[in-house]
């Protein structure tokens, strides 16, 4: 594999853009990988970059007679950067795919470029439902928040949890998670006894947690950005909510494999719904986890799986088109594609180009001295309800 990361001049990019159509019959297929490699979202970028490298090591860098070249760019999760980088990649580097996208605004910023240039945009991380509706050239291999939040709502209502207090960060994904959870949980007969939105830059959870404790719920539904989950769990235990018999439930982002071990035993027993756990009991996953650990010295998280499946999707689509890089042909090839991912069986929905996957209910347990999300129930082939209900 060969990575180029120097910046190419952007002169004339806008003018050239309109005249552009993807180059045919070239010997290399270029993938522009735009990820946050620095800044607060850097762990997302690192995981995806690692996973893409791993897949290419395992499967070679030639598909259907074409050599695959990945060009990695760092957008630091700033949408303006994403847009500029996507434009440079499409116009100057003449990439055949753009991929990556750590956060929703970044994925949205690149959408009009994908449409105009007819270049497939493979979303490997960002999780808001609307993304795939913004361009017919967007395909997603990560997840949507609706998938995990609705499922945990259904599960909680059916499993003896009657009263829930919610604590979510006050930003788009947090509100998405809250609304989808509420909708399914109350439809199943549950009651929300307390609803608190905490500021995104929240230094101390103490007062909010005290409020949760005083409202005496059966469980607390929590969604906070990656990284804050550890603080939340520690203070949750410090305040004795665990001893008061209050469970923690939520979408699995909070219990990312990446961060789980740093949270300490406070996280034990937390029940979340998510698409992937490093402890997923399948041969494909064991192989993936072992290879990832060997190459990068740590456990893969759900972001790594999104990247791994994303690059696989590109490989398979190229095989199907016989190496042809026409955008429409590639998208047609991707629609309805099914395979066995480390996370379990997945499919690209032919209608929405979004991912259809199993959502697992997992509980944090100690396995061989490390914390893992151990799956104990499965909801099969979950579509993104954020779209289907529209």
């Amino acid at each position: 594999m060969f990575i180029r990361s120097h910046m190419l001049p952007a002169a004339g990019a806008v003018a050239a853009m309109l005249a552009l159509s993807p180059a045919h019959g070239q010997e290399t297929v270029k993938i522009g990988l735009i990820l946050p490699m620095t800044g607060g979202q850097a762990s997302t970028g690192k995981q995806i970059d690692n996973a893409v490298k791993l897949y290419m090591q395992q499967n070679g860098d030639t598909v259907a007679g074409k050599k695959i070249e990945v060009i990695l760019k760092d957008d630091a999760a700033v949408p303006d950067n994403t847009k500029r980088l996507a434009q440079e990649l499409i116009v100057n580097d003449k990439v055949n795919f753009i991929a990556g996208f750590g956060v929703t605004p970044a994925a949205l910023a690149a959408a009009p470029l994908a449409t105009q240039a007819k270049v497939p945009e493979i979303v490997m991380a960002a999780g808001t439902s609307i993304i795939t509706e913004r361009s017919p050239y967007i395909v997603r291999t990560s997840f949507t928040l609706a998938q995990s939040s609705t499922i945990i709502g259904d599960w909680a209502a059916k499993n003896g949890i009657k009263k829930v207090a919610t604590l979510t960060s006050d930003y788009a994904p947090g509100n998405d998670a809250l609304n989808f959870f509420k909708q399914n949980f109350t439809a199943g007969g549950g009651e929300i006894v307390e609803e608190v939105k905490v500021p995104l830059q929240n230094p101390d959870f103490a007062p909010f947690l005290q409020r949760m404790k005083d409202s005496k719920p059966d469980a607390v539904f929590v969604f906070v950005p990656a990284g804050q989950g550890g603080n939340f769990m520690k203070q949750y235990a410090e305040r004795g909510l665990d001893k008061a018999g209050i469970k923690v439930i939520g979408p699995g982002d909070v219990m990312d494999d990446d961060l789980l071990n740093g949270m300490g035993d406070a996280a034990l027993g937390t029940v979340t719904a998510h698409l992937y756990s490093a402890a997923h009991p399948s041969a494909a996953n064991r192989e993936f986890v072992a290879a990832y650990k060997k190459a990068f010295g740590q456990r893969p998280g759900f972001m790594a799986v999104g990247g791994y499946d994303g690059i696989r999707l590109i490989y398979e689509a190229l095989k199907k088109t016989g190496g042809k890089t026409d955008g429409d042909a590639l998208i047609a090839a991707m629609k309805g594609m099914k395979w066995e991912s480390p996370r379990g069986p997945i499919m690209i929905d032919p209608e929405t180009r979004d991912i259809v996957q199993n959502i697992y209910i997992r509980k944090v347990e100690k396995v061989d001295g490390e914390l893992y999300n151990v799956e104990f129930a499965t909801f099969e082939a979950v579509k993104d309800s954020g779209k289907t209900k529209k």
Partner: protein
Amino acid sequence: MTTLFTILFDGVAYGMLLFVLACGLAVTLGLMNFVNLAHGAFAMAGGYICAVLVNNQGWPFFSALPLAFVVSALIGVALERTLYRHLYTRSHLDQVLFTIGLTFMSVAAVDYIMGSSRIFIKLPAALEGQFDLFGVGIGRYRLMIIVICGLLTVALQLILSKTRFGSRLRAAVDDPRAAGGLGINVPKVFAFTFAFGCGLAGLGGALSAEILGLDPYFPLKFMIYFLIVVTVGGSSSITGPFLASLLLGIGDVAGKYYVPKMGPFVIYTIMIVILIWRPNGLFGRAAAR
């Protein structure tokens, strides 16, 4: 009623933490008249030093805390001797530009060395959890913060008002030239004071990792809180920032508990009201210099 006391207790602990983090800034800004926006970077350094010692080297938490203080102070003195002292006589704008640049460099450096994800310090089991005192929930870790910070505050106040060093420092601040003429080594006093302030920040950083979270963006995220403490407290003494920290800590916690929707704004509302009432802060001297 017991809830009220728990809220009060949490508020005091939070306020104390803010005080230890910010009082170094009160010293450099108030006593040395230097705008040091990179103050949070020293706090972050202390936090990371403590984390590396405890998590990677297996040090006990309580021995790592003093070291967080010492190493941050040493970094402080090194930077003071090489960089800061050239800016003492420059305008405040130069100082702001210089120190904010330093802050960004520290963020990037820590991000590069330690990675961008949030880290935690492994605590001894004795500090975890809560116990009940007459029905009031008392967090062990927060109690420790109150004890440590309380002792520090008393010690600081005594040093400044009762010791020879304290009077030298106050003399050096009030009139550096006259103090120099009387045989006080002004640069040395300043360097020592600066280092001490940095050390306190380092200690505060190590203590706050558990409650505020520690990541490379710490200096930027909490800069605003430090500045609020110093502006509200006035920068002429230790008492001012101390009371301001307590007021803001309790106000913030109580606001978030009783009116969660307004929670994030309470701290700023308090600041605005106090500054309208007393533009120089609670204990500010009326623009004497």
